[in-house]
């Protein structure tokens, strides 16, 4: 079965079973190992990617459902060898520690930044509530998203 989609802006044709998890297709068929698996059941958010702009757990999305879709992974955030605003803010504030939740956290953060939601602590927390982090206590992640939002909005 052929699935056509774009991944990080590049057109991709996948010849894989339709029920393959998008996570597996990204990591094993496309070699994009930036997206991580933490639980396989949509609890931790480490496998978060954007599908047509919406944050989803790629472990819960079969490839057959992303035919024609645009998928963005962590590998698609930096442009021309430069960290984007959110990545730079994570680096500055200490929002990444062990780094395993970071790709998913960045994706959830990007969805928040794109949503134009009110920039409050509570709204940021809600936006990343599907992404578990065990290192940071979330404080510096929230700082990072807030910093990036402020920079992008001015």
């Amino acid at each position, binding site marked *: 079965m052929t699935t056509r989609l774009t991944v990080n802006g590049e057109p991709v044709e996948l010849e894989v079973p339709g029920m393959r998890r998008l996570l597996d297709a990204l990591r094993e068929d496309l070699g994009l190992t930036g997206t*991580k698996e933490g639980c396989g059941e949509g609890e931790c958010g480490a496998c978060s990617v954007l599908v047509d702009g919406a944050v989803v757990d790629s472990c819960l999305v079969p490839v057959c459902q992303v035919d024609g879709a645009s998928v963005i992974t962590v*590998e698609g955030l930096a442009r021309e060898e430069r960290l984007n605003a959110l990545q730079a803010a*994570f680096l500055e504030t200490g929002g990444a520690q062990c*780094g395993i939740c970071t790709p998913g956290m960045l994706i959830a953060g990007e969805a928040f930044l794109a949503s134009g939601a009110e920039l409050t602590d509570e709204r940021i927390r809600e936006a990343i509530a599907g992404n578990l982090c*065990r290192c940071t*206590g979330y404080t510096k992640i929230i700082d990072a998203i807030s910093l990036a939002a402020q920079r992008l909005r001015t």
Partner: protein
Amino acid sequence: MTQTVVPPAPLIAPPGVPTPGRARPAAPLRREGPDKLTGTAKYADDLVFPGAWYGATVRSTEPHARLLGFDLDDAFDWKRVVVVTADDIPGENVVSLIDDDQPALVPIGGEIRHQAEPLLLLAAPDRATLREAKRHVRPRTEALPAVFDPLQSTQEFAHFTVGRGDVDAAMATADLVIEGEYRVGHQEQLYIENQSMIGVPREDGGVSVHGSLQCPYYIHKALKRALDLGDRQAVVVQSETGGGFGGKEEYPSMIALHAALLARKCGKPVRMIYDRHEDISATTKRHPAIMRHRTGVSRDGRLIAQEIEVVMDGGAYCTLTPVVLSRGVLHAAGPYQCDHVRIRGRAMATNTPPNGAFRGFGAPQTEFAAEMQVNRIAEALGISPLDLRRRWVYREGGTTPTGQVLRESVGGIDVLEAAADASGFEETWSRPRPNDGRVASGIGLALAWHGAGFTGSGEVQLASVASLELTDAGRIRILTASTEMGQGTKTIFPQLVADALGVEYDEVEIAPQDTSFVPDSGPTVASRTAMVVGGLLIKAAGKLRLQVEGRTGRPFAESYREVGPMRVDEQFEPYPGVAFDDETYTGDAYPAYGWACAVARVDVDLDTGEVAVRDCVSADEIGRVIHPILAEGQVEGGTLQAIGYATIEEIKLRDGRYLNDRLATYLIPTALDAPPIRSILVEKPFSGSPHGAKGVGELPMDVAAPAVVAAIHDATGAWIHDLPATPERILAAVAGVAPPPQPGVSAGSDGGSVANRAAPPEGSDPKPEARRTDAQPFRAPTDPDDDWKHRR
């Protein structure tokens, strides 16, 4: 939000005067940060080894049994896979740690001592074949009686008695004796990257393993011993590691052995990548513990005597239990001056999966109880919990239960005042807290200390080595086995070395954590990396600088590129004046202590017992702060782990098996559950380490849980003696609802409250060898939905 309190010495070094270990105006950015932020950092499961096979572990589904053999179903073509049993282990069948009781695989005829114990290994070229093979293996077993309650266990892993003074005589003079029993359950480390290890056969007959780990040389030793390999034939390489918290201290040795055994037998790389279910089911947890306190005080609030008993549940094998118990016992009286103290601790065996290292290492358990006791005494005496601690907390010159005199870097009162001030504790305490009958608010305070580095003579025995070299390419390179798992090793080491050498941060490289390159700088545990290994590197840098400058006659920074290969190996030397007697358990238990105070605010829903932690301040005195952002990150992360421990994190067991063995059922706080955490770093440099640092990793884990439970008491009037203080326990205390079972003890196989599983009745099963465990070689996890399907 963070804030740094700076006692005498300035935190920020004046420009142009780099002082070793002193934070700079702009601390360096995380060294491996860009890789982690772009998805290019390679964790074990991201590594590609062409032609690699997949490995799996067949595990026990009983808590205690005799392994009689395996039935390999003829319906499956076994030539498609590789099977490894204990018979395939060329060396000693042990996972090398403190005691040699734990096998890598249970041998036929041997004893299965816990659920999810490894029995047999499989490897296959693809996952489908692997899963099919797994379904066709059945262990044959004979059930044995199981013990789940540490108080009923007769097998002891370790015991310690610590104390000084005449407790009985002093207690008799007390106006008031307060007693309390406190229980804490298991806690899962829950690193977000599951345990992962890849074994790769070597041409020299040895094996390399690449994986997620904290302690390369622990694994190196385990491989050499079980596989009968020489020093160079066993190679351990750390891949990027997605969190450890102690959980990747000892169990990776087991997984590495398994991957290595399979790789050597099939002649191909073998990937052992646990999924979350297997990881939670099989790997170590924080020890459950029972603490009993008797504390004698005078009516005017003097601390007269403390008598403390600690019982820890070690699980089925010894692992690191004696050391965990030791640290737990040494911290059990809390950071308070008392002339008459007796602490007795023992660790018992049960037929549950072995417990092991987890951030805090015994101290969070015993300090929870100590702080509960102090808060209850404050209430009984009508003294504020802040004032009582102001009177009791160790000052310089204080003497600990082991007789250690605290000569310097004693920050207890400083963190107490800093946290109280930042949180507005006194003002809040002085007037009634909001309570509208539906939601009640409360504030709670707790204080803790944490011994820096290994206990007692541990560091002397380790004799760690850290090295620094100038490569022939003119680079400065750090060589240690100390691992980065998020806490910042790869950032602070180059920072410390750059400062000591007077060069830029980016000029200092750090070698990969690969046992074929780097010396054994000891395990990355016990908050020892910044203090101990960082200290060795500063000393090594000083020597390197002298050698280079002696040879070139010019400043190091200008001339080191000309000097060709050169290497300095720095070995640990005892801190001056620090001595501990392991026989009598007296003396300097730790070279120095970190000090922490947490103040938590909670809202409790009085209808449901739900707790919302609204705010938490944690003030931590850690000697010299090397890197404020990374140190704050440790405090914030440790604080939230402690809040999870206090409120929702609980392993439930039935028949010795973890019931909530997946992320849908073992819950940790999300960003919505986490309060804003305000970390305050307080500095009282420790003169024994060249940079004054004491370590920060574990300290915050000790203190937030009792603060939260104190706040719950302040809101509701109920003391919750068991952790976690779940809504179920709170409602039991405030509304008389039947309480849930005590934490940490398994229900019987029928799900009833019988703690110990009875032996099968005599004669009930005349041919035990005919008995089989479940058709499934390893149980599927508990349906998060609930048990309704069994109730129809």
